[in-house]
């Protein structure tokens, strides 16, 4: 009896510590995957043929898994793989299926355009369930996809999402008639399924910054504000940037000379304060300087360019001020300039001309005392709390700011009173939203 009790206790301990381990690796508990290129297109098709003798549940499972795996293989080698064999060719393709197929084309084109390559991958399936109703079936399965991509990051990328399939049984067996995933944008009821215009979306994604025309800044910002077309990375969720919350924070803290959460540097605290305002706008609260919406080294590594956390730096840049995105005005300008929809952190851009003309509440302004604003010249950061006049023709008298280090005289000091520089001395970082896991 004693032995039995000891056994039970030990078993409970094992379960407990096992749970803790699983929580730590979060999503990496499935390690016995296969490389999607380890099977040829014929192999994938043979799986389909061989499964015809299996139970209907297993047939459907094999079709779903083969569709996903061969689609992943197609992204890597489109000339050698095709996923259309699993689709019901007797039916008109639904918008969902068109979207799904174009998603894989989009990923392939995007990686090519960025000169990225998936060098290896591993795919694992679990949580399969199916409901069969005569010739119709509804199946769901969860894919855990780990891959090495030459995107400049050392760590593997990982993605986990649930697919939901509708299938129809024909003479040759089950075929897919519809497929969706639980990607957050697809779960949005307003999401419009349609085939992605791969060429133009990729072109915009890749050239969105180099094609910048300062005269059309606002339009460019909107064109950057693209829907998320199943961008391949860790699953990132959109965090809204609420400028009211950011301004409220600025009101409460513009006169700080100490801050129990973020600390205070009397020599230079301007960007620390501006980052705090952005943090609050992105939903930041509480006393952790490393919890989202911050992006600490603990999450992305000490050599990632998107580190954005108080008193933390990356080793990514050789020009060291850019390594301190939370605290250094040059670092923050660079962070926003580089921000993407596929990396964690605040997302937007930095503009080095016409900054005042297009200033908006929630922007972070900076100036270069030398009059040539750029990511390596800006000297001081300010947070925009109010604007008047017309976008496109604002002056420094129509922009109000709150800032530290030569503090603003209120949370709404007119920029022309604060600094005597002309508009051309200023740069503007725009925060549209944040992306986080």
């Amino acid at each position, binding site marked *: 009896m004693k032995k039995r009790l000891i056994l039970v206790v030990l078993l409970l301990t094992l379960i407990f510590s096992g749970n803790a381990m699983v929580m730590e690796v979060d999503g990496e508990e499935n390690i016995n995957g296969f490389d999607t290129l380890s099977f040829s297109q014929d192999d994938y098709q043979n799986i389909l043929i061989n499964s015809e003798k299996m139970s209907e549940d297993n047939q459907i499972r094999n079709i779903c898994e083969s569709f996903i795996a061969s689609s992943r293989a197609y992204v890597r080698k489109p000339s050698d793989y095709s996923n259309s064999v699993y689709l019901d060719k007797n039916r008109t393709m639904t918008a969902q299926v068109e979207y799904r197929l174009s998603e894989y084309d989009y990923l392939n084109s995007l990686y090519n355009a960025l000169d990225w390559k998936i060098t290896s991958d591993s795919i694992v399936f679990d949580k399969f369930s199916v409901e069969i109703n005569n010739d119709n079936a509804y199946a769901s399965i969860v894919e855990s996809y780990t891959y090495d991509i030459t995107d400049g990051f050392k760590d593997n990328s990982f993605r986990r999402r649930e697919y939901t399939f509708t299938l129809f049984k024909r003479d040759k067996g089950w075929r897919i008639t519809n497929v969706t995933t639980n990607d957050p944008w697809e779960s949005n009821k307003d999401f419009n399924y349609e085939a992605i215009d791969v060429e133009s979306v990729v072109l915009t994604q890749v050239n969105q910054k180099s094609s910048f025309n300062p005269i059309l800044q606002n339009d460019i910002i909107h064109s950057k504000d693209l829907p998320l077309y199943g961008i391949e990375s860790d699953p990132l969720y959109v965090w809204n940037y609420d400028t009211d919350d950011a301004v409220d924070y600025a009101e409460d803290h513009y006169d700080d000379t100490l801050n129990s959460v973020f600390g205070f540097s009397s020599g230079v605290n301007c960007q620390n304060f501006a980052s705090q305002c952005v943090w609050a706008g992105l939903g930041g609260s509480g006393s952790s300087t490393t919890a989202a919406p911050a992006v600490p080294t603990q999450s992305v590594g000490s050599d990632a360019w998107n580190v954005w956390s108080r008193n933390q730096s990356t080793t990514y840049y050789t020009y060291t001020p850019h390594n301190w995105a939370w605290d250094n005005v040059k670092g923050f300008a660079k962070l926003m300039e580089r921000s993407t929809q596929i990396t964690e952190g605040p997302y937007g851009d930095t503009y080095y001309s016409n900054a005042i003309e297009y200033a908006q509440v929630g922007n972070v302004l900076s100036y270069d005392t030398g009059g040539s604003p750029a990511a390596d010249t800006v000297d001081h950061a300010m947070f925009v709390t109010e604007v008047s006049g017309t976008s496109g023709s604002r002056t420094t008298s129509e922009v109000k700011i709150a800032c530290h280090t030569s503090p603003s005289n209120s949370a709404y*000091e007119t920029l022309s009173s604060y600094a005597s520089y002309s508009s051309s001395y200023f740069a503007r970082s725009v925060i549209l939203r944040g992306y986080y896991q």
Partner: protein
Amino acid sequence: MNTIKRTIVKLFRRINKYHMTILALVLVILVAYMLGTVQNEIKHTEIHKPYFNDYWIQQASIDPKETVRSALENQIEKEYTLSIEVKEIWIDEEETKRNIKRYLGSELAEKRGWTDEDLRERFIVVRAKYYADYDDKKIFYTDGHLEQYFYLMQDKKNKKWIIVDNTSAYDVIE
């Protein structure tokens, strides 16, 4: 329900010192594991703690320029400073006037207890040129040949000036 109750009661009746020792051991292991996790977290944040708050180390002086000089030269006391050399310090009358105008009757002045009289009679802006070399792995401050404005207030009683704020330092071509 009664069966569960009976099983639990039976189980408790059978627990003896030996079982308690095993349970205690298991608990100790679990607590140690959890403490380890917490300490790792603390370790992560403590790495960055030394510069969480960073204030000027200044020596109040009846000469506002000397107060600024002391603050700059005392930067060498900080672990992140590799070298510092003050080049030039002077009172900037124009910036003094401009900033008095900005702060007079302002919300910030009220919050900081700066009266109109304080601002008109006991507020001054000092400008400094200096060279600083900071360890950029430890601190985010701009370094090189710099200029910076310092805002000082004079103590009514001892007439000494202290730095109450300053602008960001900006690099200049030497």
